[in-house]
């Protein structure tokens, strides 16, 4: 691997890992469903960065861009559906607190 790639590789992969940490923390700690969804988004951003990085270091950006475009489409659809679910939760509970969503247990 060329020194140039080395310099690219670790800051970007470290950034992706930090994004994962932040996203996970956000999802785990928040009590707000929308915030949890935003945390999930941050997680997906990390994955996007990692995929593009993989394409860059192997010089195969054609493939990884195609993957990322598909990924983004799916991401949007998941967010729309999750948003719809949150909306329905709000209509049902008049609240979007995670603590309201603990009736199924045991």
């Amino acid at each position, binding site marked *: *691997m060329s020194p140039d790639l080395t310099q690219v590789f*670790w*800051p*970007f992969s470290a950034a992706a890992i930090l994004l994962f940490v*932040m996203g996970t923390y956000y999802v785990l*700690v928040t009590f707000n469903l929308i915030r949890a969804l*935003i945390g999930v988004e941050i997680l997906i951003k990390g994955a996007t960065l990692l995929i593009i990085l993989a394409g860059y270091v192997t010089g195969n950006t*054609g493939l990884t861009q*195609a993957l990322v475009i598909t990924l983004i489409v799916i991401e949007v659809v998941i967010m729309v559906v999750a948003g719809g679910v949150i909306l329905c939760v709000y209509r049902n509970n008049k609240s979007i607190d995670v603590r309201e969503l603990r009736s199924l247990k045991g």
Partner: protein
Amino acid sequence: MAINFILVVALLLAALWTVMTARLIRSAFGLALTSAVLAILLFRLDSPMAAVFELSVCAGLIPVIFVTTISLTHRLSQDAFQIRQKERWGKYWYLLVIVVLVGVLLSRRALLPDVPLPVVTHPTDVRIVMWNMHHVDLLGQVAVILAGVFGVVILFKEVKK
């Protein structure tokens, strides 16, 4: 390479702001900002098409979805917001510590792949990959978009009671 480094730091700061900010709406915009910075990064990493998509869809469309959902669901009163802001700091300052800790840990040993990277000598164009080689992914996109349409039809419709 310095620009790359600055951009990475900016990305992390934007994400951190997204997580730590008190107002939900700001959090959504923070996400948009993160996406925008990421789009620039993608552009710097030789991926212009992906960057365009990231910018238009993730920085443009997804915040719209979030803002719509936020405005359809709830708006905190000013008092509740003040209280929430105080609580928040107690909950979120750990994240700063964790991020710094993980950052230090990561900087101690450079993350490097321990396999010889299979560098492609004749890079293929993204359009060729998409339209000539990965038809099945396109089919998947069509299907998932259709599913999303049904999702919108079913979930966003108000239930008549």
